């Protein structure tokens, strides 16, 4: 496997050079960029021309990862040439949020199943119920096929997100690429590192991924109370207090993060399901534990790659982590680098949701507030 990674920004242009070294031999180019750059279509034509035979898959982000650097307002392209692996993809329109499951189902139908080893998926980050999407997708793919990916982002704006599949960036779209061949080893890991605190609250009113009430009281009011002066920064500041959810005592808690709020009906939209009857606790960040989480995710992702450094690692980390870590955000990427080693190409973005099984062989789920890593190694 060969990779070529380039980054473009308004001020600095292309670094280290304009893309195109792999040229027509590139089979897949991952594009992660700010909403504005993707929306404007800037540099898209250049990239298209630079890798004429490659499939282009990408999305808008809340921060681009290029090696161990995290940047905003940039476009990072990572071109990949496989030796033994084929890639094919599909793209579907989501339509209504409530049709997310069906979108996942259609996406799965658009993928050739024969020889399919792994699916990497990128979705609109706002007009979607990520949980339903993942269910629809995984239930219509062979059980042997692993799925990872993420929801696109829009900085801390939560206004609009874009997905690219072989053409200009689009809203309300889900795209996926399938990897075919038996020489590709795909690993994955996903970890959060947030701490629950305060009382456990019963979700007394919700619908799908829309939350209205906790313990019979407005959930939005609760968030305002906790955020204090930061309440005006909602929904972004809501990421400081993700929700830990569990249906019952025995279940592993999942983490849910806010996508948007609606002042009119005092509702909050989360990236995944917030089922009525489930118990929720507020969570808070702890720097060291967030970084330990990223390292843990990297270790897990290495497991399936037979301890050899992967050729490529795609890091999808939650925007909530970036909002907390701020200047120290790169520490989590550096932590990943230390685990994976110097020879791995690191690409990725800060997202509105991560898609991965918690551990190998577990069911694929939508996560929030995690670092989710997918590693690729050809042998």
């Amino acid at each position, binding site marked *: 496997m060969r990779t070529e990674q380039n980054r473009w920004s308004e001020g600095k242009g292309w670094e280290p050079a304009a893309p195109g070294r792999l040229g027509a031999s590139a089979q897949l180019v991952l594009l992660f960029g700010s909403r504005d750059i993707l929306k404007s279509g800037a540099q898209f034509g250049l990239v298209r021309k630079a890798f004429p035979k490659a499939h282009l898959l990408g999305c808008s982000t809340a921060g681009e990862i290029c090696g161990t650097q995290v940047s905003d307002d940039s476009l990072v392209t990572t071109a990949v040439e496989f030796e033994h692996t084929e890639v094919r993809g599909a793209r579907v329109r989501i339509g209504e949020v409530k049709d997310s499951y069906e979108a996942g189902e259609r996406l799965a139908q658009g993928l050739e199943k024969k020889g399919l080893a792994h699916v990497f998926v990128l979705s609109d980050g706002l007009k979607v119920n990520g949980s339903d999407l993942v269910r629809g997708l995984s239930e219509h793919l062979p059980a042997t096929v692993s799925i990872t990916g993420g929801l696109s982002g829009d900085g801390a704006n939560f206004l609009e997100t874009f997905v690219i599949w072989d053409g200009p960036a689009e809203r309300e779209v889900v795209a996926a690429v399938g990897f075919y061949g038996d020489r590709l080893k795909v690993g994955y890991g996903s970890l959060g590192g947030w701490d629950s605190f305060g009382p456990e609250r019963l979700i007394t009113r919700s619908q799908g991924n829309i939350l209205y009430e906790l313990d019979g009281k407005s959930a939005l009011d609760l968030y305002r109370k*906790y955020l*204090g002066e930061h309440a005006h920064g909602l929904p972004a500041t809501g990421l400081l207090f993700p929700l830990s959810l569990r249906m019952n005592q025995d279940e592993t808690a999942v983490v849910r993060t806010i996508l948007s709020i609606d002042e009119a009906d005092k509702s909050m939209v989360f990236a995944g399901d917030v089922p009525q009857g489930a118990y929720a606790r507020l969570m808070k960040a702890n720097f060291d534990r967030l970084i330990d989480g990223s390292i843990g995710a990297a270790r897990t992702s290495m497991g399936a790659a037979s301890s050899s450094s992967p050729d490529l690692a795609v890091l999808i980390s939650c925007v909530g982590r970036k909002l907390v870590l701020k200047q120290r955000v790169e520490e989590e990427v550096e932590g990943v680098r230390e685990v994976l080693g110097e020879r791995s190409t690191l690409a990725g973005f800060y997202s509105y949701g991560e898609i991965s099984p918690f551990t190998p062989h577990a069911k694929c789920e939508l996560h929030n507030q995690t670092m989710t890593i997918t590693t690729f190694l050809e042998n």
Partner: protein
Amino acid sequence: MEPLHSLLRRQLKPPNGDLSAVPEEWRAFIQAVNEAYRQFDDDRTMLERSMELSSQELLQANADLKAKNEARFQATFNQAAVGLAHVSPQGQFTLVNRRLCEILGYREADIIGRTVKDISFPADRDVADKLVLSLHRGEIDKFSLEKRYLHANGAALWVNLTVASVRTPEGDVDYDVSVIEDITERKRIEGELEQMAKYDTLSGLPNRNLLQDRLGLAQARARRLGQPLGLALFDLDRFKEVNDSLGHSAGDALLYELAQRLKSNMRYTDTVARLGGDEFTVLIEGCSNREQIGVAAAKIHRLFNVPFMANGQEVYSTASIGVCVYPEDGEDFTELIKNADIAMYAAKRDGGDAVRFYASDQQVKSSDQISMHGQLRRALEREEFELHYQPKVEVRSGRVLGVEALIRWRSPERGLVMPLEFIKLAEDTGLIVPIGEWVLGKACRDLREWRDSGLPDLAVAVNLSTRQFRDQGLTAMVAAALSHSGLDPRSLELEITESVMMEQTTHTTSILDALVGIGVRISIDDFGTGYSSLAYLKRFPVQALKIDRGFVRDIETDHDDAAIVKAIVQLAHSMNLGVIAEGVETADQLAYLTSLHCDEYQGYLFSKPLPGDEVARLIRSQRAGELAAE
């Protein structure tokens, strides 16, 4: 550009926050440091705020939970169907529920602060002390007991109390939880059940169970005082007749009145009990010897001198009273009752209306019944029976006209046994049939022998029991005995009792007709003692009546007896029946009977029953005397 963090500004003195004084190349760095300072402040503020908020929430949740638990506790506590209380280790009520207030009749405020002992029935005040001590020492987890509390109105009420301790984390008793159930009603019912278990419902007298308890106590007292103890057991003579003729309610009324008489006339130390039916006992205490016990028993006997009122009718009744004495006559309840019973039957056997003390030979007889049965069965095979004959004498001439055959059992184990001692058993066991057959055969043979040896025509009377009469083969058996012996049927007289006549009349008639058809004579034995229905005398082919010895005994002195005998003689004669008087022992009796024109008599006056050869000799000598006189 953001203003500098106060700490950074202080640190940057002397430039004192004026970034323009900082070299150009340091400004971005200072900005980054500044931002980090602010972020840390922000994060810390946010963290502190969220901790504060969540503590408040948790406090509130805790308070809500406490309130909810308290409300739930109050609801459960006050709606419980049993009384509940928290009691301090010193015994004071600290919390009581609604039900307990209802049970005790107090308002809550009146109980709180009072001690358990305050509301306990005086005698039960300290009953739980030891248990409470054990509970507080941790020797037991809880205890239950029944005790009495005092209702606010002063009444005693029974409760079932269960107590467990609640301890502090240090292990000291914090308070006791008491569960109090009102069991007053249950106790009342238990009392009634106990009354029913110990007392007879009809008479209100102690029953057998209680008598047994009382006997145990009385025995202990008697032993301590070295005094004897009397047990009088009695039943009413012919009580069945009262029930049959006047109805059971009259019988019950009689028993009730008897119970009242016994209660009011016996000393209060004596236990009067009803064992069932018409059977009563009196446990006689405080006597220093048998004589005094006898006096008490005689007092019972005298209670029957006055008639009872039963359903508006005067009824005379008598009792057969058996008395036994502890310790001579028995050690325990069973033995004493059994021996008193034996004595009572002895009294009955002697005609009732009497007091009999237990004597050990009475017991020998009854305990011997079983072995007697075996011996009786073998007696036939071993030919241990023999017949004695008592002459029947013509009043007018003084001549022996016939004999009555009377069985004797010469037992190797028992000596000579009289029929009174074994006929009942023979009847009960069915042995009477083969024995009766033997008697009949033997009597016929003896008579035939005497005739063959030259004795004049004599009649022989043989008694038939009721049991034999039920036997289908009776007629055939009689016929066989006659034919085997070759005796003239007219020489055989069969004596039957009145009770035979009363039973199974159709059956009886046909048997009697058949017997008379053979040529046998029938007479009624013990006439006057039974039902004395004259109707059957007309219906059945009877030739003679035998007047019971009971009427003959006092015939000269008892006007009633004399009247009865006179009436029987007149009745018999009016129906062309012969009359024979039994048990004639004196010349005066005979003279009286003569005056009444009685036909025949038998009794010690002429001769007691004698063995066959002796009676034959007697008759022969009488005839010889007559011949000589002629």
